[in-house]
């Protein structure tokens, strides 16, 4: 168990980080992510209020659609990354544990017209991830099978009203289920009884998201990185680039035009030594050109991998760089993200 944003979270269960990681990629893992914040924002002014905080197009979010976005500050830095879904004409936000107290005051501050903000403290959140997730959850509800990637519905499971989205943080197909604590605990136990499912901890969650090239807030993105630097330009709505009304719009749009000074990239070292967070990245002349923000061992990749920021000149795929580990230079190269291909559920047409 380790302390995380005021919670005690298990790093691993009896299977261990490697076992849990591989089990999720091969079968299905269950993750308790109840530490994350859940909020409901609704009312006539909800769209306008949210668009004063995030850079995505919230106005055109369809009922039942989920969007990954970022909250930015006036200098274009990222205050948090989050999921916003439109469900029952309200906006359902799932936010990072360490940032969840920021939302109510920020939303109050930017409030435009009639808006109600409710922190859903009574709800827990679990994630069922992996190729067998649909089969397993399908035993509890037939309605989840034909959900598209990045969609959300209300479903009743075992007489419990749940909010289920086809989303996750592992690069695999899967679902995230929100429901009241007591009821969700029962559902989680039912799911864990299924043969395909193993309980997984924070360690596997981290190695899975790293292989999937997904950012961890506080490490790969924070107030000093913009969405452009973080290679997250795709979260910015076209409409928003025109209206320029989100915080930091000027700087962010300028960066889109001129290109950022630094960029988030994937890095694979030669050999087996693992680059960890904080490892310096160098060029051929031993000049420091960046730093690793997340690094570790990729169980599915079966080798070390890292993400970090480098001066943009070095962000081109295939660029040879050095990593300074324990005083020695380790050769490495810049690679494309994700490290392990995403296996999100695809119907005839993928959601954006």
């Amino acid at each position, binding site marked *: 168990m380790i302390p995380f944003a005021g919670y005690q979270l298990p790093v691993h269960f009896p299977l*261990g*980080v*490697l076992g849990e990681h591989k089990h999720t990629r091969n079968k299905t893992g269950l993750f308790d992510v109840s530490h994350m914040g859940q909020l409901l924002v609704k009312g006539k002014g909800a769209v306008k209020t949210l668009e004063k905080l995030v850079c995505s197009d919230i106005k055109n979010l369809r009922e039942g659609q989920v969007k990954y976005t970022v909250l930015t500050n006036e200098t274009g830095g990222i205050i948090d990354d989050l999921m916003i879904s439109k469900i029952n004409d309200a906006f359902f936000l799932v936010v990072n544990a360490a940032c969840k107290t920021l939302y109510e005051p920020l939303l109050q501050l930017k409030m435009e017209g009639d808006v109600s903000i409710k922190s859903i403290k009574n709800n827990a959140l679990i994630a069922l991830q992996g190729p067998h997730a649909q089969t397993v959850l399908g035993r509890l509800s037939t309605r989840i099978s034909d959900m598209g990637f990045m969609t959300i519905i209300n479903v009743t499971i075992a007489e419990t009203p749940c909010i289920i989205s086809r989303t996750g943080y592992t690069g695999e197909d899967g679902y995230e289920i929100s429901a009241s604590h007591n009821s969700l605990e029962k559902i989680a136990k039912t799911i864990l009884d299924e043969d395909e499912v193993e309980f997984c901890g924070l360690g596997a969650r981290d190695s899975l998201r790293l292989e999937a090239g997904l950012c961890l807030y506080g490490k790969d993105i924070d107030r000093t990185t913009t969405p452009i630097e973080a290679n997250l330009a795709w979260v910015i709505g076209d409409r928003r680039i025109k209206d320029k009304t989100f915080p930091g719009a000027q700087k962010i749009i300028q960066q889109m035009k001129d290109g950022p000074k630094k960029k988030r990239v994937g890095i694979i070292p030669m050999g087996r*030594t*693992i680059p*960890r967070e904080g490892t310096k990245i160098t060029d051929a002349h031993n000049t420091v050109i960046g730093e690793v923000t997340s690094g570790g061992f990729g169980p599915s990749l079966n080798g*070390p991998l890292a993400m970090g920021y480098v001066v943009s000149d070095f962000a081109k795929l295939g660029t040879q760089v050095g990593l300074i580990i*324990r005083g020695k230079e380790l050769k490495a190269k810049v690679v494309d993200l994700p490290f392990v291909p995403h296996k999100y559920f695809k119907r005839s047409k993928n959601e954006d």
Partner: protein
Amino acid sequence: MKIKYTKEHEWVSVDQDIAIIGITHYAQQQLGDIVFFEAPETGTNIKKGNEVGVVESVKAASEIYAPISGEIIEVNKELDLEPSLINTDPEKKGWMFKIKITDESEISRLMDEESYSAFVEASS
């Protein structure tokens, strides 16, 4: 053959002037899944306390310090392909390297099994 232990949770199995070295069951438990062992080069002369290798687990990197002085005469090549042997069989198949002992008096200063068990109990 006698087995001795260090406060750094290494075991040292001594047979005449050769010592085989690895980490204890307690150490591997603390480290979690081990994914890489950076071994020393054979032929290197090392002094007690020098860093001779690094164990990388999914959680962190941990330096291995030479429990005694001498020459590295062999490293466990099996660990290149299967570093998890350190987890599954730390005190046999998961051995790390062999040292040709140069100073026998260093051996007597290491802990015996009983003292090591007490040490682990006290520190956990």
